[in-house]
């Protein structure tokens, strides 16, 4: 049927009576869908749970329970030599605030404690300690044994033990350092090296992924599962209206949750927000594009709540957790995994979030991140739009 025919038929059937009905995009219809979705979201206790209760729990966990800081690591110090200098070194170990020392006379005593996990390692000050000192090689004056099953801590113990020895030697030479250059480390952005300060902004990324991807995947899949989508598809509402009407309320919900989390972070967990609120909101809003797009794509492919939640968990939540650089540094990952992280929108979000909280408005960091998130988002939406047709064909 040609367009002209359609027009004639239109007027024959009296359809021009209300031109609005024929429009591809209509604000009234969109408003009706948004209103419906908002009412449903408010009435569904699981939405409130996911959007408001879960973030609070997650933030508290990351702020207090999870800590990457190394403090009071328990080690043993085996004093095999009775010389004054050996005792002085042992005292130097006991005196640091990062180590908690269990003194021993025989390495077999502490070796058992390392095996049982009570100690993370031990330092042996050997019988021939004096001779070794004389020989002038600082590397081999003591022996350090660490528990390799916890690599981070093991590294820390090894390095720190060396540091203690070096410092001790330096003070023994009456202020004349052994090495010519004296290093004084200074940590930027997080001067006290509190992991909470970088974890809390990261946790916001996890929360937004849950709301954006998981919740959206669930609510759209629910419409397919309950048959309500079939009824809505048979009305004049267009695919565009249905999709936007579905996403808009969750976009707002995501932004509200971000603001709430940011407020908690700043006022309760004392994470400084060094950047501007505007930057934070911009970054979050742009991150919601790929997050919502992914949720939409998952639900329009699976059309089933159970499957949608599983796929969202594996493709959204876990990558955001493991590959975003929030808990595990991306630079420390093998190269193939590093390449994969470039596909994870949360990677860019975490980077920008940590910058806006800890450093400030560094647009040189934000802009590439925003562009990357936008690109991934557009990609998801393009596929989701193609997958959602205004019929029930698969």
């Amino acid at each position, binding site marked *: 049927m040609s367009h002209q025919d*359609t027009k004639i038929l239109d007027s024959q059937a009296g359809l021009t009576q209300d031109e609005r009905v024929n429009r591809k995009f209509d604000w009234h219809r969109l408003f009706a869908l948004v*209103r*419906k979705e908002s009412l449903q979201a408010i009435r569904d206790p699981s939405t409130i749970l996911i959007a408001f209760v879960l973030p609070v729990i997650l933030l508290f966990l990351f702020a207090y329970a999870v800590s990457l800081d190394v403090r009071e690591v328990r080690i043993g110090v085996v004093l095999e030599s009775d010389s004054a200098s050996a005792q002085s070194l042992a005292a130097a170990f006991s005196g640091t605030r990062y180590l908690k020392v269990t003194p021993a006379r025989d390495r077999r005593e502490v070796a058992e404690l390392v095996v049982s996990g009570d100690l993370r390692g031990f330092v042996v000050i050997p019988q021939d300690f004096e001779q070794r000192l004389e020989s002038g090689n600082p590397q081999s004056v003591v022996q350090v044994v660490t528990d390799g099953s916890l690599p981070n801590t093991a590294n820390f113990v090894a390095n720190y033990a060396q540091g203690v020895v070096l410092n001790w030697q330096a003070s023994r030479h009456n202020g004349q350092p052994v090495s010519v250059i004296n290093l004084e480390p200074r940590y930027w952005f997080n001067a006290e090296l509190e992991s909470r300060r970088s974890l809390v902004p990261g946790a916001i990324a996890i929360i937004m992924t849950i709301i954006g991807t998981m919740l959206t995947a669930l609510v759209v899949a629910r419409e397919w599962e309950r048959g*309500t989508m*079939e009824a809505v598809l048979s009305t004049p509402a267009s695919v565009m209206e249905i999709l936007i009407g579905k996403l808009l309320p969750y976009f707002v919900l995501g932004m509200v949750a971000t603001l709430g989390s940011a407020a908690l972070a700043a006022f309760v967990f004392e994470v400084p927000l060094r950047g501007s609120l505007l930057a934070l909101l911009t970054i979050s809003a742009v991150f919601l594009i790929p997050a919502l797009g992914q949720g939409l794509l998952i639900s329009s492919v699976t059309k089933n709540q159970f499957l949608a939640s599983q796929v969202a968990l594996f493709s959204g939540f876990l990558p955001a957790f493991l590959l975003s650089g929030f808990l595990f540094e991306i630079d420390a990952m093998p190269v193939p995994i590093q390449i994969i992280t470039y596909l994870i929108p949360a990677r860019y979000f975490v980077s920008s979030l940590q910058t806006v909280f800890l450093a400030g408005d560094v647009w040189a960091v934000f802009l590439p991140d925003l562009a990357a998130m936008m690109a991934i988002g557009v990609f998801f939406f393009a596929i989701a739009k193609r997958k959602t047709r205004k*019929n*029930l064909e698969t």
Partner: protein
Amino acid sequence: MNAMNAAITGDVFRRLGKSDAAVVIEDVAKHFGEVDALRGFSAEIHYGRLTGLVGPDGAGKTTLMRIMTGLLVPNSGRVTLAGFDVVEDNDAIHIVSGYMPQRFGLYEDLSVMENMQLYAQLRGMDADQHSEIFATLLDFTRLGPFTKRLAGKLSGGMKQKLGLACALMAKPKVLLLDEPSVGVDPVSRQDLWRMVQELTDDGMAVVWSTAYLDEAERCQNVLLLNEGKLEFDGPPQELTDQIKERSFRLEQVGTERRSVLSRALNLATVGDGVIQGDAVRVVLREGAEREEIDTLANEVGAKLEPVQPRFEDAFIDLLGGGPGGTSALAERIDKIELDSQVAVSCRNLTKRFGDFTATDNVSFEVQKGEIFGLLGPNGAGKSTTFKMLCGLLKPTEGEAQVVGHDLRYATGSAKSQLGYMAQKFSLYGLLSVKQNLEFSAGVYGLEGDIKRQRINEMIETFDLAQYLNTSPDSLPLGFKQRLALACALMHRPPVLFLDEPTSGVDPITRREFWTHINGLARKGVTIMVTTHFMDEAEYCDRVAMMYRARLIALDTPDALKQGAINDAHPDPTMEDAFIHLVESAQLDDETRANAQVVV
């Protein structure tokens, strides 16, 4: 409502002039992968008429409905609705048609009013028109008092009325209703019929799809589908006329009715037969003589009365007649001997879930070898009662016994005395047919030679040999049902519980099923059955009617029908009887409520 629709549709007809075809279906075919849903046929649906889209489950009704609303694209052929091609003018279709999907498509967490507002806005209606149209629709559907109630909290009937109201919001020219009467009690169903009648009187084209063949007789025109083919297109009367003077009733055969039916069905000249209370109803094959059936009537001393043909008879005839009257299954079973005459009994059975009473003080006794039916609309409490009787639910109060075993104290030994066939057959799709049989033999404790022997018996009886290594999911419906029955009967229980055994099953498979059940009953197996097919209640010796958790009547089908005789229904059907009982129960409730107010 009248005024409203006259305004919408009146214009359209004048302008469209001579052609009054609302939907034109031309050689439409649709397949999903290997499965042919529609096999290519043509038909027309007209304005001002109620058109029934009739056929058993899987006939292709929903597929055709979805094609008509533009939700599916046909593989070949074309469909136009109100002059618009459903594929090319997809947008226009959504404006001129109102569609009510099979599953309740409205938002259960929105109120009645919120759902209506949503649909009004999606249909592009101005806000200032809302109140007027809402008032009309609420009045029409009698949903006025419930506007604030969440849709999920409505009864099945009210949900369908709300769906109808939302589908009517667009003032559609064509209204498509996909199985609107499923899950709706007979009283609400009457309401739906009345509403649809009014709409067609105003000129709207209404399509009503249904698997209940008796509903076809209420339509002005019928499209009869079976396995994707159009078997008949025309007024239902035309189809029933084809079997005119071939329907008879063997009256007053009483206790002998099951053997009479079995003998009648084994006659070469009889194509179909069912039990109707005290009588047996038969349909002769095309061109067959009365001689054989006359002889049978004489032998059993029954009067042979010619009766009005029914749509279902005609459908069976169209498909070449039903199965024979001998159940190979029952032949193999030894007569059941029980110590007591009472097979199942319950006293003051009550089940409460929180503050909701699902079964309220129900008592009855079922005799050995009896077919006992439990009837009622969805949510009336029949499934709950049933589950308590099989030991699947613990009663809150009261007691139940199966073959003398109290279900409270001897659940295990009571369960070994009963076979249970759950709704939808509940077979294991990931096990093969053979493995399903072995599993159910195993759970009922059969071992060694007996186990092997019983399984082989079932395979032979039900002709399952060809399917042994396939999954039950891929079996034809009839075989699926046979397998489910085989699994439930593996341990030869004296009592058989059947929960909605024939829902979603085509009439021929249902006939075959009842042949087995009748055969089993004649061997002394006690049958407990729930059904929502009112005419199937006729197979039962006695029927318990449940409504709102209470037992409102318990009697033989004939007695229940007798009780409903009045001027409007001189020869009431089971459905009429049910409506009558429900209405008097409601009246009772009201009088009691009023009395309390007075006191």
